[in-house]
């Protein structure tokens, strides 16, 4: 199973008004792999996430999920249903809703019932609500958030907001999870805890994870393979240790 390519990107490019934000990007991620995407600010990392989730439409190139599903050209909603979920660089929670509701909302595709059965509170509504409550709570427990379940999500401390975002993404039951700088703004302890959480998520949910990160400790600690991006182009690609020894990469990161 380890060799099954879960996410395959070929010749992906996008241009914004003449600027090649991403150029000829190729990527293969194996199933249940933890893959890192690093590079200086403005290298196009988040743009790649936006292309993978249908926020932007690529100028050229193809994206294939699990060998069969074509992603390019689909919209965000369809892509999520096919099995890609993400978090955001600047946290985007449903601020006025509770922590528990944030996760419950992400379960909405799994436990579908009509507006009518919701209004009339039919049995389907009652059964599914109970199931959703349970499953959402179970997910929150994985992230140690169960004690904050009824708190307004905007009142959570920063680190926990990041965790909630991951929990919410996982609730959509994706095959591939995209994490956009999950450790941004965290202190060392929080980052360590986050590393453990990400590993746990990968194993427990058999998740394939693509991760954007600046924190090199985290990248070294958990990523099996890496792609380094600079000015929209791939600088180096391969197993983490090798890539980090690459002279070009060191130059791009540390300067001459």
């Amino acid at each position, binding site marked *: 199973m380890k060799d099954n390519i879960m996410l395959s990107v070929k010749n992906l490019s996008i241009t*914004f008004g003449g600027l090649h934000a991403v150029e000829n990007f190729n990527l293969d991620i194996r199933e249940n792999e933890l893959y890192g995407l690093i590079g200086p600010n403005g290298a196009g990392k*988040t743009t790649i996430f*936006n292309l993978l989730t249908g*926020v*932007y439409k690529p100028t050229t190139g193809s994206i294939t999920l699990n060998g069969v599903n074509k992603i390019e050209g689909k919209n965000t909603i369809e892509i999520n249903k096919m099995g890609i979920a993400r978090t*955001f660089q600047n946290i985007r929670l449903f601020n006025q809703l509770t922590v528990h509701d944030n996760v419950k909302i992400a379960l909405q595709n799994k436990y579908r019932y009509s507006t009518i059965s919701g209004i009339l509170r039919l049995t389907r509504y009652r059964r599914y609500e109970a199931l959703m409550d349970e499953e959402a709570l179970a997910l929150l427990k994985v992230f140690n958030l169960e004690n904050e379940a009824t708190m307004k999500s905007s009142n959570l401390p920063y680190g926990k907001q990041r965790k909630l975002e991951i929990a919410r993404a996982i609730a959509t039951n994706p095959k591939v999870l995209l994490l956009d700088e999950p450790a941004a703004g965290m202190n060392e302890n929080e980052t360590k805890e986050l590393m453990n959480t990400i590993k746990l998520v990968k194993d427990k949910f058999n998740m394939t994870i693509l991760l954007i990160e600046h924190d090199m400790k985290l990248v070294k600690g958990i990523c099996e393979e890496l792609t380094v991006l600079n000015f929209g182009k791939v600088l180096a690609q391969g197993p983490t240790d090798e890539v980090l020894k690459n002279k070009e990469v060191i130059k791009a990161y540390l300067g001459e």
Partner: protein
Amino acid sequence: MDFLTYLVSGLSLGSIYAIIALGYTMVYGIAKMLNFAHGDVLMIGAYISFVFINQLGLDPILSLLLACISCTIIGIVIERIAYKPLRGANSLSVLITAIGVSYFLQNIALLIFGANTKSYKSIVSLPPLHLFDGNLNISSESIVTILLCIIIMIALTTFINKTKMGQAMLAVSEDRSASTLMGINVNGTIAMTFAIGSFLAGIAGVLLCSAYPTLTPTTGAMPGIKAFVAAVIGGIGSIPGAFIGGLILGVLENLSKAYISAQLSDAIVFSLLIIMLLVKPSGILGKTSIEKV
């Protein structure tokens, strides 16, 4: 020749819409808000000039200038008191506040001037233009309005492109936080935008009431909404867009009044908005903006 007459008066009405639309489009582009009260500033300007001309007997041009200055002050005060505290709040709150301001101005005017229609004396006292042996009559108001609109367009475009303040406005409309980092006084720039928009509203108010000499507290409401529609059709945030949108709307309104139905002309104009939003939501000259994620 009837058609030409309708067309010219449509262009004149469109010019007024264009001048109002400029205020909307600049404020929307720079402060990222729909200033619902813009049409009512116009109405206040018309009342002020009415008082100066019809009751105090002042010189029309001087009255126009005084009305514009008053509008400018009102615009700045509104921005300072009602909108500035809400900078950074969600757009729904800002919009509701703007509606509150619009209502406030209308009702203040109602209390001061009463609900009775005031008949406005035109500021233009030139004879109408007769062409083609009197087959085509163009009122002097139309000529003045169209000319004034063109002058304003040229002046505003020059201001935006050639002056420091204009460039600052462009910068703020592109990226507010980056502008702050570049040392641009964002609050000052936004206040300036309101000042210019309100000054133009003053001109539009006087021109509108000169061409259609009935003045009530709700005089500004409909033209205000239509000017916003014009701004959307032309492409919100774009100055030439406001001009084109205004002219299209004015001509369409006048022609449908003449050839279809006077009562349904508003419905036709608004239908154009809905069609435009379906076909090209960014408007004729608008840019499709990319939302940052």
